[in-house]
Structures are given as C-alpha cells and as structure tokens.
C-alpha cells in the first residue's frame, strides 16, 4: 500500500487571503479588511497547529475467487485510521470486464479513530477472464480539514471468471475411437449393445451371441456382431494468431466460449479432451477424461489472449501427446492469419480427423465508408469463400459461425457435412 499526505486546497487559499487581507488593511488603513480576512488566517493557523495528518489502512478481500460470468462478487474494503478524520472517500477501480452493481463504486464515510470500518461493493463479472481486483484509493481529510491523506491499495486479489457454458445437446462424433470404454458407438465390431451384422460362428464367440433363428435357417451356427461402446480423443484447437473484435466482444471471445461448451459436452460423453492454443504463444493440455480435466481446460482458457508475433509457428512445437493420431481435432479459428491456415493444412496432412468451425470475423469488420470500401470488403469476403473451398476440397468441412448465432445449429452443420464427406468417400 502506498500513501501520501498533502494540504487541503483551502489551506493555501485561506492563508493567501489572510496574509493579503491583513497586509492590505495595513496599507490602506482600513481595519475592516483585516476583520474580514483574519478569521480565515486564524482558521488555518489553528488547523495547522492541531492537524498533523493521519495514517490510513486499506485491506481488500473478495467473498469468492472463482465465479461464472454474470455472477456477483462482494468486494470488502476494510478501512482503518489512527486518528480522527472528517471523512474518508473510497473509490474502487475495476478492470474492463467487471462492473459495479451500483454505480459508482465509491463512498464517503466517517470513521472513528482506531475502529476499523468495512465497506461492501457489489461487482458483477460481465466477461470471462482472469482479473486482479483491489485497486482501491482512499482519501482521508483530517479532523480540522487541513491535511488530506491519499492511500492506495495496490495488492490485487486474483478473480477467475469462467465463461457461462452454452448448452449443447450433441457433440461432433469422432471418426475413430479408442480402446477404452465410453459412450460412443465404435465402428469396429466387438462386445456392445448396438447391432452391427450377422456372421458365422468363430472360435471364441460367446454362445449367447448365437442368433437362433438365422442359425436354424442356415443350418449352421450364426452369431450377432455388435459395435462396442468406446470413447475418443478430442482436441480443441484454438487459433490465437489474430482476432477481429469490438470492445470486449470478438472472435476470440466467441471461440473461447465454444471451446468451453465443447469441452463440457465431450467430457460428459466420457471422451478424453485436450486443448491446443496455437498462436503467438503456443500452449496445450494433453487429452484427459473427467470433470477435473474440464475444470483444467476452463482454467487454462481464462489466460487466453492474442499475442502478436510474426514468427512462423509449426506443429512440432506441440508435444506429440497433445495431438494423438486418432484424435478428432475441432479447430476454432477466424481464418485471419495465413499461418493458422498452414497449420490446419498440416493437421490434415498428418491424417488427423479435422473439423473447422470458422468464427466469422465479418460482423466485427464492417466495410469502410465509400464505394472503394464496399468493394474491398466484397473482395475480402470472396477470398474467405475461396479459402473455405480450399479446405473443403481437402476433405475438411468448414462451417462459419457468426456472432449472435447459437452454436448448436453450427455443430449440426459440421456433423452433417462430415457425414456427407464420409458418404462421398
């Protein structure tokens, strides 16, 4: 905490007034001038003699350190003074993304010496992210109104605001599954519930698999073949090379929300989920299963930011464990940076099962005014269409997701286009 002491502006004004008035009275020989201004001088002299300032203590605590978007947090500011003061003005400064429930987040209070007082400010978390809360300034005016002590609490308490999940009913079904048990119907044959086919009995088949009627008709034992229930590896690939946005809304914001929602739905389906944040800063979480992994992913997402960087980034910067060869990779990208396009092509080149959700930057980048601006914007949109075609021609479905549109129908489109691509193959 830092603090400094200053004289109240009235002190200088009253002192000047008094000195000038008394001097003027002597100069022009009018005692009325001294009578009018001397009280101000006496007031300052008395105040200065008795008021030597005070020490102000400020402590900031939060009632919760982890909240979800839209939740309210109570910020408690504990104030203490070592001497009597006329008033203490307290103001809480909040970073963008947090807003006071009652505006403004400030108050003026009287505090007796030696008796701490706690003020409570309601703060609403309006956007996900990691914040530092606690920038409080206190301004204590001494009992005689002569000195003003400014104190500033600099220690910030971290507050984690998690994105509110968009509810998804279904996830993108992966093309390949793992050997572990899960909720997905595998394409392979084995022990399971879902009927796959009928085939002649082979050594090692369970007797309960024998299909009695078909066996009777064929004159030889035939068995039911089934699809086993398996889980899959899903890697959520977040492009952080560039973003388009206004204020706090933008493509990165949408992409992070989508990653959070996809992580939730895939974890619920018992898949192993991992995240790769690829951009100026490359970070990853290898796929793991379970709610703890979901919490880990959400926690990692909060620190996601665009870090401008001009170096080429290759996939070999990502640990092999973070990108298993059988994983379904769902990429969320605004397709704004050529490097992200190259990386996605590389992923496809490695034979990974890739689906691309294009977080459309178009709503955040309106055309410049004028005919040329309109033309440039049209050309840019055409280039983007050509880029999507390039991916489609490589068997990678790209579905655009616009701001304000729910994610569910976009995923349904991804699922449909993957099914169509598989049928065509």
């Amino acid at each position, binding site marked *: 905490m830092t603090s400094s002491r200053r*004289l109240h502006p009235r002190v200088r004004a009253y002192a000047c007034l008094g000195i000038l008035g008394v001097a003027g009275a*002597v100069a022009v020989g009018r*005692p009325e001038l001294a*009578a009018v201004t*001397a009280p*101000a001088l006496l007031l300052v002299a008395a105040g200065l003699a008795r008021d030597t300032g005070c020490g102000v203590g400020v402590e900031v605590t939060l009632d919760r350190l982890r909240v979800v978007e839209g939740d309210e947090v109570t910020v408690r500011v504990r104030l203490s003074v070592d001497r009597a003061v006329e008033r203490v003005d307290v103001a809480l400064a909040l970073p963008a993304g947090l807003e006071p429930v009652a505006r403004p987040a400030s*108050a*003026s209070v009287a505090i007796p010496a030696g008796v701490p007082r706690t003020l409570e400010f309601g703060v609403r978390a309006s956007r996900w992210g990691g914040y530092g809360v606690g920038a409080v300034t206190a301004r204590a005016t001494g009992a005689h*109104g002569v000195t003003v002590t400014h104190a500033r609490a600099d220690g910030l308490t971290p507050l984690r605001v998690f994105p509110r999940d968009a509810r998804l009913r279904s996830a993108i079904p992966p093309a390949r599954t793992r050997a572990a048990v899960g909720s997905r119907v595998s394409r392979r044959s084995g022990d399971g519930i879902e009927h796959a086919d009928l085939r002649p009995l082979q050594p090692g088949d369970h007797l309960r698999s024998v299909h009695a009627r078909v066996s009777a008709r064929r004159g030889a034992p035939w068995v039911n073949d089934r699809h086993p229930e398996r889980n899959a590896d899903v890697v959520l690939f977040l492009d952080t090379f560039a973003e388009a946005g206004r204020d706090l809304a933008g493509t990165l914001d949408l992409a992070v929300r989508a990653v959070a929602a996809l992580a939730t739905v895939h974890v619920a389906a018992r898949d192993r989920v991992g995240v790769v944040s690829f951009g100026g800063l490359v970070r990853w979480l290898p796929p793991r299963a379970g709610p703890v992994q979901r919490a880990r992913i959400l926690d990692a997402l909060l620190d996601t930011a665009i870090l401008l960087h001009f170096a080429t980034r290759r996939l070999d910067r990502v640990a092999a464990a973070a990108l298993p060869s059988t994983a379904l990779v769902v990429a969320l990208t605004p397709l704004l940076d050529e490097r992200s396009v190259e990386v996605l092509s590389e992923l496809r080149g490695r034979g990974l099962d890739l689906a691309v959700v294009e977080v459309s930057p178009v709503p955040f980048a309106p055309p410049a005014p004028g005919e040329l601006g309109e033309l440039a914007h049209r050309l840019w949109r055409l280039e983007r269409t050509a880029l999507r075609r390039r991916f489609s021609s490589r068997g990678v479905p790209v579905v655009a997701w616009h701001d304000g549109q729910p994610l569910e129908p976009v995923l349904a489109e991804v699922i449909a286009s993957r099914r169509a691509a598989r049928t065509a193959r």
Partner: protein
Amino acid sequence: MAAGLAGAPLLDGPLPVVLGLAGVAALGSLAAALAGWWADGVGVALVLLVAEYGGSLVARGPGLDPSAPLVAAGLLLAAELAYWSADVRAARAGGAEDRAVTGRRARRVAVVTLSAAAGASFLLAAAALPRNGGEALRVAGVTAAAAAATVVLALLRRVR
C-alpha cells in the same frame, strides 16, 4: 452567496468599473472551480471578492463599515460550500455519502461561519476603540500582522 458578496458593494452607490469587473471575475473563477475546470478558482475568487470589498471601502471614504462581520461570515460560508462541492467531486462524485459525514461537515461549516462573524465583530469593535498610541500603536499593529503571517507560514512548512 458569492453573488451576494459581489453585488453588495454596488448597493451603496456607483463604484469604479474595475471593482465591478473584479466581482464578475470572482464569480467566473468560482463557477470554473465548481465545474471542475480550475482547481485554484475558489482561492482566486476569494481574493477578488476581498479586493472588490476593499476597493469599495476606499471609494466610500472614512468611517467603519458595520457590515464587515457579515462579509467575513459570507466569505467563509461561500468558500466552505465551494470546497465541500470540490471534495465530493474529488471523491469520484456520486458515491454514497454517510449521513455522519454530511452532518459533521454541515456542523463544521456552521461553526466556521459563526466564528468568522464573531471574530470579525471582535476585531471591528477593537478597531472602533479610541486610539491614543499614535505611530507606536501603528507599528505594533504592523508587527502583529507580520508575526501572524510568519506563524502561518512556519506552520505550513512544518506540516508539508
């Protein structure tokens, strides 16, 4: 209150234009200070108001002005109210103010105003007493004024 102080000297009769201008300038600087444009505006307004009052005294001629205590009280009342307003602004205006804070400040303003009136009355009464000291008394007065100013400056330096 400031407008009353600026206009009061004009009620006694015509005054030099420069005094009227001083009053207008005082009101302008006070308005600028209250609007938050000029932090030192209150102090400048006070000095200008006193200058206008002093000028009116000189223009009026000999004889003590019995309204001086009222002027002293009005001057400090206007100043205290202006600084109250500035303090609220400095505290990131609009925040809830405790009743205790408002009450304490109001009491302070009242005490300062009444003390100013009482102090000015006392000084005026002292000035009205018959003086037989001649030049010696005048020198003593000047010395007392200089001593008061020195004490205030010394206290200011100590607190800084």
